[in-house]
Structure formats: structure tokens, C-alpha cells
């Protein structure tokens, strides 16, 4: 009797503890959103979303952050796609051709290490690469630096998803007389929702990263106008506006942060929607 009571108390205690932690984690997100929204919403205007900065934007005069919004979308989309083109085949190859080889274990270790490297290091590395290649601060250089940041994220996330694919899939598919390349296609179909999730994570990281683009993409008040020209980005726009002494401009920084958050939210919702569609055929 007493023993049973103790077990029930334990159950109560640990569920309460979990709820508390859950509430804590949720509260942080809510607080961030509330603070950004309350400080920024007043500064948010149609002008801000549809115009580039005019002279004196950083002292509180007219213009907007369209250059940074578009610049960030270009940078993050470019980097995510480029990283996917490199990472997805690497992962599929690892699983189909070299599944348990020593080199694949080494590659995973390398990717884990790369994941942990701070993005300012990629920024510095990207900068030296840029100098070596004779590039100036530009959209292209920014995309390359961000690609380096997100490759490990994309590759390792997708790698884990592919590792979860049922073992039978390989046997069943190859038993139909498929080549290994054709099996790759089937494996891609099975893991497509996971790939989309990995892309989403990579995109979120790329669009929010300031350090990697600081030296490589540069900054400009103009709209992006070429792969080899500098581009603005939202994280840097937020940084520059926050570092001015003018409260009105600082409020715009919060409005910019709100825009960045909304972009990530929209991309997440789009991805969820795609996942539901793509995941229809997945074998569980």
C-alpha cells in the first residue's frame, strides 16, 4: 500500500518537473517574441518593408530594409541549395557505397567537428579564401561562407534520417534487379521529408548568421545587384541599427528582427506543409 503511494507520488513529481521545464522553454520563446514585437511593431511600416535605406536612414530618416530582406533571402537560399547539392549526394553515397567503411566514420567525425566551429571562424576562413580567389566582399563570397557553415548541419541531419531508413528497403529494392544508383532514388524518396527538415534547419541557420557574412558579403544600402557585388543582410542590418544612439533607429532594429523571425516562421510553416505532402508514401 505504502509502496504504491510512493510510486504515485514519484509519478506526480516527475510529470510536474517535466511540465515546469516545458513551460520554461516555451516562456523563453514567448518572451523573445513579445519583446521583439512590442519594441519593434511601432517602427514597422510599409515604407520599411518596401524601400532601401535613403540617406540618413541610420539617423532616423526615411527608407527601409528591403535591401537587407532581399539580400538575406538570396544569401540563405543560395547557401542552402549549394550545401544541399554537396551534402545530400555525400550522405546517400556514404550509406549505399561505403556504409560501414572507416572513411565514412572519419567523415562523420569531421562533420561533427565542423558543426561545432563558431561561424566567425568560417567568416575568417571565407575571407582568406575570398582573398585567395581574388574575390571582393560580395553575394557570392557570402554564399560560399554560409555554405561552409550549413554543410555540416545539412549533412549530419540528413545522415541521421537516412540511417533511420528501414534496412529492408535496400534488400527489397535491389532484389528487383535495380542498380545501386536506382536504389539511391528510392532511398531519396523514403528520406525526402527528412531532407526537407534538414534544409529548413540549414536555411534558418544561414539566414540568421551574422558572423559568417560580416567580412564576406559586406554591406550596402543598395539592393543586391549582382553575384560579385556586396549585399546587405538582416542580421547585420539589426546590428548596425542597434548600435546607433538613436532610439527611433533602435526600434527599427527590433522591427527588422521581427521581420527575420516572421521569415523563419513562414519557411517553417511551408516546410511543414510540404512535409505532410511528401511524407505520404514514406514507409514507417
Amino acid at each position, binding site marked *: 500500500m505504502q509502496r504504491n503511494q510512493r510510486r504515485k507520488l514519484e509519478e506526480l513529481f516527475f510529470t510536474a518537473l517535466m511540465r515546469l521545464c516545458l513551460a520554461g522553454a516555451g516562456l523563453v520563446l514567448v518572451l523573445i517574441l513579445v519583446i521583439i514585437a512590442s519594441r519593434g511593431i511601432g517602427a514597422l511600416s510599409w515604407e520599411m518593408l518596401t524601400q532601401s535605406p535613403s540617406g540618413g536612414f541610420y539617423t532616423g530618416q526615411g527608407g527601409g530594409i528591403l535591401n537587407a530582406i532581399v539580400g538575406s533571402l538570396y544569401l540563405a537560399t543560395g547557401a542552402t541549395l549549394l550545401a544541399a547539392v554537396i551534402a545530400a549526394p555525400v550522405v546517400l553515397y556514404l550509406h549505399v557505397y561505403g556504409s560501414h567503411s572507416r572513411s565514412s566514420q572519419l567523415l562523420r567525425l569531421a562533420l561533427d567537428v565542423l558543426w561545432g566551429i563558431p561561424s566567425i571562424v568560417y567568416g575568417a576562413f571565407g575571407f582568406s579564401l575570398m582573398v585567395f580567389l581574388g574575390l571582393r566582399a560580395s553575394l557570392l563570397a557570402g554564399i560560399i561562407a554560409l555554405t561552409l557553415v550549413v554543410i555540416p548541419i545539412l549533412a549530419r541531419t540528413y545522415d541521421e534520417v537516412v540511417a533511420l531508413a528501414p534496412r529492408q*528497403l535496400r534488400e527489397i529494392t*535491389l532484389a*528487383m*534487379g535495380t542498380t545501386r544508383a536506382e536504389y539511391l532514388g528510392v532511398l531519396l*524518396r523514403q528520406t525526402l521529408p527528412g531532407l526537407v527538415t534538414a534544409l529548413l534547419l540549414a536555411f534558418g541557420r544561414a539566414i540568421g548568421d551574422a558572423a559568417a557574412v560580416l567580412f564576406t558579403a559586406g554591406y550596402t544600402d543598395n539592393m543586391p545587384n549582382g553575384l560579385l557585388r556586396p549585399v546587405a543582410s538582416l542580421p547585420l542590418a539589426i546590428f548596425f541599427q542597434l548600435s546607433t544612439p538613436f532610439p527611433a533607429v533602435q526600434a527599427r532594429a527590433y522591427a527588422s528582427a521581427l521581420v527575420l523571425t516572421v521569415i523563419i516562421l513562414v519557411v517553417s510553416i511551408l516546410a511543414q506543409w510540404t512535409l505532410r505532402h511528401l511524407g505520404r508514401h*514514406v514507409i514507417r
Partner: protein
Amino acid sequence: MRSLSIRDLNVWYGPKQALKAINVDIPLGQITAIIGPSGCGKTTLLKSLNRLLELNEQVRVSGQVLLDEYNIYDPSADVTEIRTRIGLLAQKPFPLPMSIYDNVAYGPRIHGLARGVLDANVRGHLEAVGLWSEVADRLKAPATGLSVGQQQRLCLARALAVEPEVLLCDESTASLDPISARGIEELLRSLKGRYTLVIVTHNIDQARRLADHVVFMWLGEMIEHGPAATFFEKQENELTQAYLAGEIG
């Protein structure tokens, strides 16, 4: 003269020998059942017939499997062609991550069969396994939405759509409910003549019902084989007698 013959086949998983000097001729157009207790090498023997064994990197094979005098273990043999001619129906129903239609159409598509008549081809194979009337209105729906028994019939249709000569069945009714299992059994019986079937089963009654020819395995060795009628009538080996009597295994 078409034939499927196993000549002096040995298989090792790492240092452990799983098949020991197997010699047997599989009669064509008939159902051959491989029986024996768990772990005796039934499935290993089955999967050596379409070289699926080698997906396991630990495996080493010696000997020959001759399909029309063509050794499928010859270094120059084309493994995709072998697996096209020798299909597999697995133990558990396992649809590909595609729609019902695409599951059946996948084989013909990659092998370039049924060009221009794919719809009719898919329909024909779904009808052959008695699934057409149940799925005709939801061909684009996910295959995973089907019941387990339906999924196994879909897998059979998928295997047949590749147009194999030989079909290997690895305990293909073991994970099904009794009614679905009986359905698959009936289908396999109906394939006799057009296809050579090799089935692995731990169910002696199923072997009695289906098999024309029986192979009895024990600890990696083939103990006895012969036409089902004589095999079940009188066994030459004591192990076979004991196994059929339910005393061992």
C-alpha cells in the same frame, strides 16, 4: 532445356560456415519447399539464389548456382540481370515508399518493360493477385494505407511485374493472419507452371499443401530432398523422420 542447379555451394558468415557443400537441382515450373528448423540455413540458401547474400559484407560464397548453365556467381555475371530473372517475395510485406500504382509500375519502368501499355500492365498484375477491385479507385494512394495482407499481395504483384522466371519466397505467409496467408498460398499455387517457385517455410503443413519437391536442411547441410509425394511418404534419413514427426527442431 532451362534449369536451376546448385553445385557444391558453400557459404560463410565471417568464420562461421552457414551452408556446407549443397548440391541440388530445382525442378522448373514447380514449387520447391526448403524446410528445416530455425537457423539451419534455409533463408541463406534461398538468398544465395539471387545473390542477395552479398549485401552482407561478411559473406563469402564458393560453388556455383547455374541458371540455364549460366553460373550466377561468375565474376562477369550481371547481378541486376540475375535479380531481374530471379525475383523475391520477402517475409514481411514491404511496399516501396510510393503509391500503390507506382509500386507495381516501378519494376517495368526501370527495366524498360511495358512501354506505352504501363497502365494495362499494372492493372493486369493487380488483377493477377486479386487486388485490382480493392484498389482500383485509389491507385495514387500510399501503399502503406493497405492492410498487411493486401500489402503482401501488392508485393507479389510488384515482383511479378519485373517478369522473373524464378520467384523466391522467404516465409512469405509467416507474418500474415491465417486468411491472408491462405490467400497468398492460393496465389503461389496458381503461379506454378508459369514460374519456378522456391519457398522457405517452417510450416511443414504448408510444405505438404504446396510443394512438389522438398529440400530438408539441418545445420547448414542438405540432409535429404526429393519429390513431395515420396518425401512425405517415406524418409531415408533419421533426422528427417524425427523433424517431420515433430521430435526435433
